């Protein structure tokens, strides 16, 4: 199997293709390195939500988690409110965020399972509720994170941004989960044929619930880190991660029909999505042109990627 036949390679090629012209504009090697660091930092947040979304999407048509932005906002808001900027509350704050994630995931799955609502609609409806909760709990006041958490989120270890390290480790974990674990097999089976999976003894309910929980917990983690990173939770802070979480999954080479997923591609696609905006901004293109180019490039990537997949 050559490298070119890997579905995720195209996301990396695209990222490289957008990196080079941007780096060329920048001020020497330092500038290019600065761009790499920025890309790693911001891609990390997309990776976090993308990993969770990928699991959900792997479960097949109709499975998409639209509650990711609201979960991010709610987790960020509640955990920062709980810590209230005080020192020594970091672990508890993280626990609050993750608990919010678990609760949101459980809420989503409850709607899907008990009311048999299609997941797209269930998570959309639930997201309105989470958003309201966030508004009600803090009315959009931006509470600062404890100083060390803020330093951690914006800092770097051995030159690599901490958030990128976190996202990198989680990506490895997810890779193992999907490629090697029993859970990953079950998930893929459900994505291909849920009915057959159930009849083959796959614990379908368990796997589906776990998946929605994981997706929500990842969103919560991302919301927590992002609000520590940017100095407080904002009510609209997750908004752009809705499309991003879907885009990184599909650009990364996962089959949207389910049953087939792709972890390395998530990183490639996340880097690409950051770099393309940087490139178009750096060349001074207006919002209109920027949007059009983004769209065209996304389509081009999947067209090329799927062409090579069929050829192999």
């Amino acid at each position: 199997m050559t490298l070119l036949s890997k579905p995720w390679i195209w996301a990396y090629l695209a990222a490289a293709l957008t990196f080079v012209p941007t780096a060329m504009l920048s001020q020497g090697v330092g500038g290019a390195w600065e761009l790499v660091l920025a890309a790693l930092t911001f891609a990390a947040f997309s990776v976090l939500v993308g990993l969770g979304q990928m699991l959900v999407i792997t479960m097949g048509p109709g499975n998409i988690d639209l509650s990711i932005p609201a979960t991010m906002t709610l987790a960020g808001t509640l955990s920062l409110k709980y810590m209230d900027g005080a020192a020594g509350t970091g672990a508890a704050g993280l626990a609050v965020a993750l608990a919010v994630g678990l609760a949101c995931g459980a809420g989503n799955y409850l709607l899907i399972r008990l009311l048999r609502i299609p997941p797209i609609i269930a998570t959309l409806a639930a997201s309105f509720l989470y958003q309201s909760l966030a508004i009600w709990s803090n009315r959009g006041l931006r509470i600062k994170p404890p100083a060390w958490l803020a330093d951690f989120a914006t800092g770097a270890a051995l030159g690599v941004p901490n958030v990128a390290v976190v996202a990198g480790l989680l990506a490895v974990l997810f890779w193992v989960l999907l490629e090697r674990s029993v859970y990953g097999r079950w998930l893929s089976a459900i994505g291909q044929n849920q009915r057959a999976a159930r009849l083959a003894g796959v614990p379908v309910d368990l796997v589906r619930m776990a998946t929605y929980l994981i997706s929500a917990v990842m969103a919560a983690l991302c919301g927590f880190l992002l609000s520590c990173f940017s100095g407080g939770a904002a009510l609209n802070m997750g908004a752009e991660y809705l499309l991003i979480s879907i885009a990184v999954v599909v650009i990364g080479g996962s089959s949207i029909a389910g049953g087939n997923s792709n972890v390395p591609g998530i990183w490639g696609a996340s880097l690409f999505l950051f770099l393309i905006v940087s490139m178009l901004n750096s060349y001074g293109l207006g919002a209109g042109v920027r949007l059009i180019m983004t769209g065209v490039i996304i389509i081009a990537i999947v067209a090329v990627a799927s062409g090579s997949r069929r050829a192999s």
Partner: protein
Amino acid sequence: MGEAVSAQSGVAGPPPAAAALVELAAVRKHFGAVRALDGVSLAIRPGECLGLVGHNGAGKSTLVSLLNGGLEPTEGTIRFAGLEGPGAARRAGVRTVFQELSLCPNLTVAENLRIPDHDLAGPGWRRRARAAVRESLAQVFPGHRIDPDDTVADLTLAERQMAEIAIGFASGTIPARLVILDEPTSSLDAAIAEQLLAHIRRFCARGGAVIFISHLLGEVLSVASRIVVMRDGLITDERPAGAFTRQGLVAAMGHVGSVAVAAVRPGPQAASGEVTVETPEGIRARRGEVVGLAGLAGHGQAEALKRLYLGRVSGWQASRTPAAVFVAGDRVRDGLMPLWSVRRNLTLSRLVALARAGLVDRAAERSLAEDWRSRIGIRTADTADPILSLSGGNQQKVLFARALATDAPLVVMDDPMRGVDVGTKAEVHAMIRAEAGRGRTFLWYSTETEETCLCDRVFVFRNGRISAELTGAEITEERILEASFEMKEVRP
């Protein structure tokens, strides 16, 4: 070779003599390294019913796809009543009923006629479609219970197969001249299958032609006028039907030895083992027993099995030894993972036992798959091949292996021998018996009475209820048929 030459020059000249409906000349079809067809020449003339038999993976369905125009031959030519090229098959009146059901489940039965009949359109088309389907259904399956306005998804498997066959024979803008039936009776019970055979005879008598593919050799022998035997992509034998006996046919297919139905009656422990299954419908089974569910297709057997299975195996947990495993008959809907390899499909039910610390032990997985590949004779070069590259019967064997590879004490089988060739069937029967001997319980619904007769205990279903329970020597074809039709025949 000469035929191929005449086929090329024949484009301009007059159609060749005797007006064959379809003519294949030295046709080869290769999928990569797999030689599905390796030089087949064949002609079918009006009024003829051609029986096509061969082991799983012999190339029968591939031949059908070529005849239907769905696949292009790698080599050789196919001519339809003198026509060639795309759409020729359809214009020549070739209709196909595929091995995998291919109706659109979201459409009604009548609307499904629209798919093969390209010219069915314009005002009143629905009325015409309804009339054509209703007429055909009445002709082929008198006494059926299908309304042309029923949505296909709401029909039972047998009814779907009936609907598809009826659509194949229905009158259309281009009348049906050659109807290809690829294992059409696989989910029909004996009575309905007999109706179909009778219709085929009438159709051929009226000058139509039929290609009839089945692993039920009795059916083939009784309906075909000529029988073609295939083996590994080649035609190995071709004679008028009268010239074959059942044994001869089996031998020609390349199965040697123990194909004769060897009903090993229950060992002594079976009758006395503890009762492990008891359902509200009244199905009872003991440890080590092979229990059959019989009756006409669609009378609640499959539903009863599914209820039982889903009741025992929770959707919330999985264990090393599942309480029960399921062998699906409707493999596309209930069994296959289409994106996966043979290996992954095979090991799915045993994953928990194959795992260490939640991770799948891939070496153990490979050896398990290899083991079952040879035990059950799955025809594939490598268990890493995609499952969809297997022939229908071989896919079914994988599903079998998936279930038997577990340690589950109860095996629930929903017409599992669908499309499995005679030789393999005999082997699987023996395997079931051996596993039962080791203490497993089998619940087996089959549309073939012959198979039901191999069981230790049989429950006959009628209208969703058990109309008779037969054991031991009571299990005969006559008793089963009686109980399938007569409600008063409750419990002996």
